């Protein structure tokens, strides 16, 4: 440590939480090994690492959801061993989850009440929600159903739920992955305000630029161990990324593929959402040429799932709403479209892209039977199917004990590699993928993106729907955004600014709605 660092104000603030030598092992994997770090009051501390680095396990231990095998934690000098989240909340530790902690069919006030120890009567709670949410610039209407809210508004519900309990330490698990750039700005203002009031924030993310602008200190985890601590402002994003991955990164290469004729055309596509609380598509139109990658951005829940269903054929529309190579296929199902060369990989891996309890071989058969000729006279050619599955496992580096394990048994990232690989291996002419690298570590994400670009270079038309803007800007030729079921006009990626993208995505989405409700 050098002398100027000792003078930094955050080091003079009293220590809030200290974690010492914490270890947690699960059968077959050590999630955290001898992890130590500390947070001062009012400090914004980043916990940085790839998927599977052990960030989530670590914060779950701090929040009382998981018990450490060994090691100790102290909160303000006193031993801190929360047996359950309730105890953690009573000690002033609150957590905003990445997902899985809101109830869609309940309203905002009820959702908040469920996260509190002794909630006041509903009427009083509703007025406190309004007061607190406005104080921190996160307007919310307590009477609205959470199922009707945008992702940004849902996150506000979680933050307000924490703030009502006056936390000393606020844990945020990947808070910006579902937000527009403008919403991120609002969130950061709120967090800085909290920090100035003395609340410490433990901020989990793998978005390095955000951490550089927001955080005072960072602890970097790799494979369950602390590999470095640093001051993010003094490091470049690349340096931190390499600390996180432990290797140098190679960005995907793009061969300057020439664009050909239009392969996929969508004209005035409107379909009602088959999903409860879903978003219907309204007059969506776009064209994708052979060799072109169209990136579709948008905050989650603005029609991404519905667009994938309508393109894959799971939801049918008018004949000429979807055209492959000029032929209207809007009224046909998935098999007819597959026969014409359209493959689709949905976002939900378990239950949609893959049948959880079936083996990888069987899952390979489910979508590959038609294009790979895996059946003969109604009988399955298991030899060929196994070879197909084994090929995917090899080409896409799927880490699995074998091709006969159930899809459920694979980690999220490995299953993602498998389902994307399965579609890309069918010599498609049109590829539709929703969230191609969701939950996949950086090296695997790079290889999936490379594979997508390779198919495009080979003449396939590609539609990538993603919430990761960096990903879209990296691989897409043209860019459009979904906002409440409407698609903006696609624009070339070259020359787009982040502000323009934010506006295309709908700005601070949902703000107006929340204001009007008052």
């Amino acid at each position, binding site marked *: 440590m050098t002398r100027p660092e000792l003078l930094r104000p955050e080091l003079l603030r009293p220590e809030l939480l200290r974690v010492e030598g914490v270890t947690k092992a*699960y059968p077959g994997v050590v999630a955290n090994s001898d992890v130590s770090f500390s947070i001062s009051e009012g400090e914004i501390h980043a916990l940085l690492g790839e998927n599977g680095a052990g960030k989530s*396990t670590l914060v*779950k231990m701090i929040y*009382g*959801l*998981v018990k450490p095998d060994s090691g100790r934690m102290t909160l303000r000098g006193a031993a801190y061993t929360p047996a*359950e*989240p*309730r105890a953690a*909340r009573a000690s002033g530790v609150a957590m905003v*989850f990445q997902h*899985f*902690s*809101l*109830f*869609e*069919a*309940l309203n905002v006030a*009820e959702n908040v*009440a*469920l*996260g509190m120890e002794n*909630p006041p009567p509903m009427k009083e709670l509703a007025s406190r929600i309004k007061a607190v949410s406005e104080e921190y610039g996160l307007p919310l209407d307590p009477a609205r159903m959470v199922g009707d809210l945008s992702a940004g508004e849902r996150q506000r519900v979680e933050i307000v739920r924490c703030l009502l309990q006056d936390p000393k330490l606020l844990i945020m698990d990947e808070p910006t992955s579902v937000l527009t750039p403008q919403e991120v700005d609002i969130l950061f203002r709120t967090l800085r305000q909290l920090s100035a009031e003395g609340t410490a924030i433990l901020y989990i993310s793998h978005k390095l630029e955000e951490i550089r602008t927001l955080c005072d200190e960072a602890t970097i985890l790799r494979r369950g161990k602390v590999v470095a601590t640093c001051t993010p402002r003094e490091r470049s994003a690349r340096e931190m990324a390499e600390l996180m991955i432990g290797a140098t990164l190679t960005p995907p290469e793009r061969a300057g593929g020439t664009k050909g004729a239009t392969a996929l055309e969508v004209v005035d596509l409107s379909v009602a959402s*088959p999903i*409860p*609380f879903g978003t219907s598509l309204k007059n969506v139109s776009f064209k994708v040429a052979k060799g072109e990658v169209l990136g579709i951005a948008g905050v989650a829940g603005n029609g991404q799932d519905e667009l994938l269903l309508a393109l894959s054929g799971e939801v049918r529309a008018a004949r000429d709403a979807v055209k492959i190579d000029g032929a209207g296929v809007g009224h046909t199902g998935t098999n007819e479209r597959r026969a014409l060369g359209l493959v689709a990989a949905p976002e939900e891996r378990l239950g949609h892209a893959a049948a959880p309890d079936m083996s990888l071989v069987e899952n390979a058969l489910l979508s590959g039977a038609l294009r790979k000729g895996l059946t003969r006279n109604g009988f399955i050619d298991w030899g060929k199917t196994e070879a197909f599955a084994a090929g995917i496992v090899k080409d896409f580096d799927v880490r699995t004990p074998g091709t006969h394990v159930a899809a459920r048994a694979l980690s999220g990232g490995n299953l993602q590699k498998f389902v994307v690989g399965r579609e890309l291996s069918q010599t498609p002419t049109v590829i539709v993928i929703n969230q191609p690298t969701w939950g996949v570590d950086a090296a695997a994400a790079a290889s999936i993106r490379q594979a997508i670009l390779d198919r495009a270079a080979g003449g396939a038309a590609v539609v990538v729907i993603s919430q990761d803007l960096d990903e879209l800007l990296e691989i897409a030729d043209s860019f459009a955004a979904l906002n409440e079921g409407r698609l903006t006009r696609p624009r070339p990626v070259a020359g787009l600014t982040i502000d323009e993208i934010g506006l295309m995505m709908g700005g601070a989405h949902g703000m107006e709605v929340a204001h009007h409700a008052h």
Partner: protein
Amino acid sequence: MFGGIDPALLISALMVASVPIILAAIGELIVERAGVLNLGVEGMMIMGAVCGFIVSVQSGSAVMGFVGGAIGGAAMAFIFGVLTQFLLANQVASGLALTLFGLGLSSLMGQSFVGIRPPATGAVPFGPLADIPFFGRVLFSHDWVVYASIASVAAAWWVLKATRTGLILRAVGESHDAAHALGYKVRRIRMLAILFGGAMAGLGGAYISMVRVPQWTDGITSGAGWIALAIVVFAAWRPWRALVGAYLFGGISVLQLNLQAAGARIPVEYLSMSPYLITILVLVIMSSGKGKAALNAPASLGQNFHASR
């Protein structure tokens, strides 16, 4: 139009006829609101019926009989709860097995009780109120279980709507992962709901064998549990609608008996199948069209919960 049928008698009879279905349906409604689908209602009811009957005959007390019935139903539910919540067995299969098991076991237990009369469950003395024309007959001439069944509807509605217990129960049924993340004990809450559902089904069964019939015969519940299950869906998981549904179906079965007595020229078989036929029709109509969202089904219904990591 009422040729030979007295409306006061008809309404009064349908209120009595609906009691077992209401009790079982309210129990199952609470279970399903907690996200558990227990298809063993029929099995729990008939075990309640036989246990209630045996206890009341042995003790000579109708009240003890109902307590025994509730315990019998809850014991069956306990088996289901252990299977599905702790051993993570499939809920549909476990529920169906529970029904088959209950039908067999009750028949075995009731063998030496055939032909015995249980102690009577008398009407609640309302004094002069019972003499009011029409209303006295309809509202103030019943035994206490009839009033208790209506009170249970009100209680279920109030708990679900206005209490924290109800909010937590709905939350668990809506998303067990989210409830777990917030630190709620999903398994314990579901187990309690399952036991409550079993006890209510048992009470309903005991009412059949001790008041409605009142004697023991094999298969005495004759599908009341299935109707209770259907009513929960028909009611879109709302207690007052379950009451309306139960009266509707209770009404049809009573009307069917009355029509037979009045000598209507419809074959008996059509009339006795009508409640079941209408149940199927209602379910088909309700689940078509706008789909499950309109049905307001608990989002985690029927899914097993396993706390991973």
